[in-house]
């Protein structure tokens, strides 16, 4: 795809999250805790034609370099994502997401009888399995629609 075809403009400094499965861009922002209140410029391309995926989403965050730990939680919903760190319009680092062993404070437990859903001073913590995640407190396994459980408070 040439620059002319790009629907979202290049960024000067920041992070481009590419090859996100079509329709998951808003979940990517949610899982990273980016809701615009931090003042970052955020551009989103949704359902863009892709060579490797039928359609893909692209997320660009200006002025913020996401850490490897931050982007690894993306593996839960965007396992094929690539992360480009951009400085002065050039890609200086390119990463794939790795599956972390645990994700903390990102997902809420769907089990209403889990202690993390009571009014206790504890962050949610999920072990990442081959095909889902598991609450480290109540041991409930979540395989389907993980993005629906984003929001670990």
């Amino acid at each position, binding site marked *: 795809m040439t620059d002319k075809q790009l629907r979202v403009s290049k960024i000067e400094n920041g992070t481009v999250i590419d090859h996100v499965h079509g329709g998951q861009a808003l979940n990517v922002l949610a899982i990273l805790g980016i809701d615009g209140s931090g003042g970052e410029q955020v551009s989103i391309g949704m359902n863009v034609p892709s060579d490797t995926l039928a359609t893909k989403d692209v997320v660009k965050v200006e002025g913020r370099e996401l850490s490897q730990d931050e982007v690894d939680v993306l593996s839960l919903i965007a396992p094929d994502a690539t992360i480009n760190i951009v400085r002065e319009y050039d890609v200086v680092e390119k990463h794939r997401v790795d599956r972390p062993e645990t994700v903390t404070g990102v997902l809420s437990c769907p089990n209403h009888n889990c*202690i993390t859903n009571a009014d206790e001073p504890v962050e949610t913590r999920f072990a990442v399995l081959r095909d889902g995640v598991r609450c480290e407190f109540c*041991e409930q396994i979540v395989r389907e629609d993980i993005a629906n459980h984003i929001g670990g408070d």
Partner: protein
Amino acid sequence: MRHDHLLTANQLTREDIELVLDRAAEVDANPASFGQRHAGTLLGLCFFEPSTRTKMSFEAAMKRLGGDVVDMGSVDSSSVKKGESLADTVRVVEGYTDALVLRHPLMGAAKMASEFVDVPLVNAGDGAGHHPTQTLLDLYTIRENAGLDDLTIGIMGDLKYGRTVHSLATALTNFDATQHFVSPESLKLPRSVRYDLHEAGATVREHTDIEEVLPQLDVLYVTRIQRERFPDENEYHRIAGEYQIDAGTLQAASDDLTVMHPLPRVDEIAPEIDGTDYARYFEQAHNGVPVRMALLDLLLEDSA
């Protein structure tokens, strides 16, 4: 013992289990030698749900080790009623005691509480989660009566919500045991326990009818099907009735069958079984004291 706390059965290795059961056998053989082992030690009992056997046997165990207990009392008479968090409660009680026993209605409560305290914490039941000390006394009873290897066990009743079942099934994966699960369709094992059994490579069979499997069993572990699991009273009576054991049922069983139940029972096991050689559920309940003495002894020994 390698662990600071006992929270779930998943954390127990075969070595851990045998360490506790061997120590319990020592207690059984010579209880007097343990009588002053933990003189001056205070155990905190934090029971956020009613309990008879578990609470009394922990109290008896600590006192028979020479120590004593302090009891939070019922939730209604405690600061929990004022809205105190569990995290705060255990941090306060930790300052009064040398170890804590916690029962709570929410799953994962013990795991969370353990992250706020430094003294050993024992899970005495967390909602529909785990009940690992019940499992240790179950395993002790099985070892005494049938042996833990080359074991064929049937676990029957409420497998979905029964925390004693979840912990026992998980712990048995450490041994050469074939597990037959017998329940109504609506009360089959939860996904989390199936996952653990699968990951451990356990030999597992599922049934809806006890008659399919009864003749093969060395041990039949019966649990209570609770009324509140069914929206309809008639449905409850119809289904619960299919998972009750009486003398007629056991005609198809091996003479060496051991029948167990974590108690309390309602009508899952007919009283006519109580006087037979099959019945081991009162012995099982009595084993709660030496097994909990052994566990406390090991945990306190390591935290001293």
